[in-house]
């Protein structure tokens, strides 16, 4: 314990920098991933096969392979092709941070889309019928009725997904991003001890606890009009 306190007093600026990068990865990937997940889930639930199929392929590809492999494909794999290095895509995958963010976003979008799809299936048919009876077009029914209700229904799993995403951000350190895990790894190598790793673990637990409180609060707010 004393060792951890000493380490914290010595290297808190570096750890704080790492924490800031981790939180950036977390928040940005959650916002972008969620924005991507909604259209993916709507497309996946479409009765038209040619709309549903691409999103279905995307979801099974990203849910069926390890995140680490996805990060390596984007960061090391795409650099193999000259046309990628010459294109605008290189702005995204040429640098470690945006590349890690891209991989985390796409991965999370696939998982969230699956959750929201479950929510879409759970929207009561009567609500959709009522909306149609009010003269809403199909687009309006989807946008004003189905999507908000589906998000409300899937809120608990979505919140869980956010807490899990915090743990996924640690993988950014494998492509030289100095997030909390990256900083801890460097400190641990410099000192030949695992104290820095343990300290990082403690910080992750605290953030995970705060996050699960926040998501539970968000869930309550999102479904506050629902009878209990």
């Amino acid at each position: 314990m004393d060792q951890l306190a000493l380490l914290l007093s010595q290297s808190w600026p570096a750890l704080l920098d790492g924490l800031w990068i981790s939180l950036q990865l977390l928040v940005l990937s959650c916002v972008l991933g969620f924005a991507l997940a909604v259209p993916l889930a709507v497309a996946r639930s479409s009765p038209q096969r040619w709309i549903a199929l691409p999103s279905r392929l995307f979801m099974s590809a990203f849910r069926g392979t390890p995140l680490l492999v996805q990060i390596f494909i984007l960061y090391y794999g795409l650099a193999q092709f000259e046309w990628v290095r010459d294109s605008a895509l290189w702005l995204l995958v040429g640098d470690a941070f945006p590349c890690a963010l891209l991989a985390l976003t796409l991965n999370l979008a696939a998982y969230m889309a699956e959750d929201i799809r479950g929510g879409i299936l759970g929207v009561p048919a009567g609500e959709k019928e009522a909306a149609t009876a009010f003269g809403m077009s199909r687009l309006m029914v989807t946008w004003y009725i189905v999507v908000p209700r589906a998000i409300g229904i899937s809120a608990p799993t979505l919140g869980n997904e956010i807490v899990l995403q915090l743990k996924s951000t640690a993988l950014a350190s494998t492509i030289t991003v100095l997030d909390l895990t990256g900083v801890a790894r460097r400190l641990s190598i410099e000192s030949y001890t695992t104290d820095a790793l343990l300290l990082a673990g403690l910080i992750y637990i605290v953030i995970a606890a705060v996050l699960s409180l926040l998501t539970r609060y968000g869930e309550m707010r999102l479904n506050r009009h629902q009878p209990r």
Partner: protein
Amino acid sequence: MAALFDYSAQLLEGAALTLELAFTSLCFGLLLGLAGAAAKMSALPWLRQSAHLVSNVLRGIPEFLILLICYFGLSNLINTHFAGTLSLSPFAGGVVALALVFGAYASEVFRGAFLAVPKGQLEAARSYGLSRWQIFWCVQLPQAWRICLPSLNNMWQNLLKDTSLVSIVGLEDMLRKANIAAQFTKQPFLFYAAVAVVYLLLLAASNPAFAYFEKRANRGYASPA
């Protein structure tokens, strides 16, 4: 594509190690999960509380960090306390880390499943004079097993995907072999994509396996029409 063929034996070797690691961790993880669930349902408050604490802590830390701590930390621990130069093999470090993570999640799933077995079943078994062990083995476990199979499928798939992390600590799994091949051939996309496809196939293969288990576990129940 020819390069892929040249390294296919290496990649297969890596895939075998990935599966070996996953199955070994699964065995220890299931045992840890059962022990954890038993501790969480124990009558002793301190045991119950510490089991909850440990499983919450393990579920709050990134798997990658747990692996690093297990791999480097356990080696350090052994070296400082037993004055040896013994170093933990990456395989053992990987199994410890993956089994701990699996066990932490499994203990929660098992606890829920055991609580979901109707109380009347227990009372009936007790009034038939079955011993505590018989009740656990013949009444509780088969029913809890049936309830937790879908979650076990999920956890197994996560475990299989998490095995890719051991390539970072130098264990020669499928991803590490692809790393090496990519460095030599300068075709990283090809090899990483191949690894991704193998993972997809392995995960796709576990779905029918679990469907079979579920069918078997549900054979005493009427199928929902």
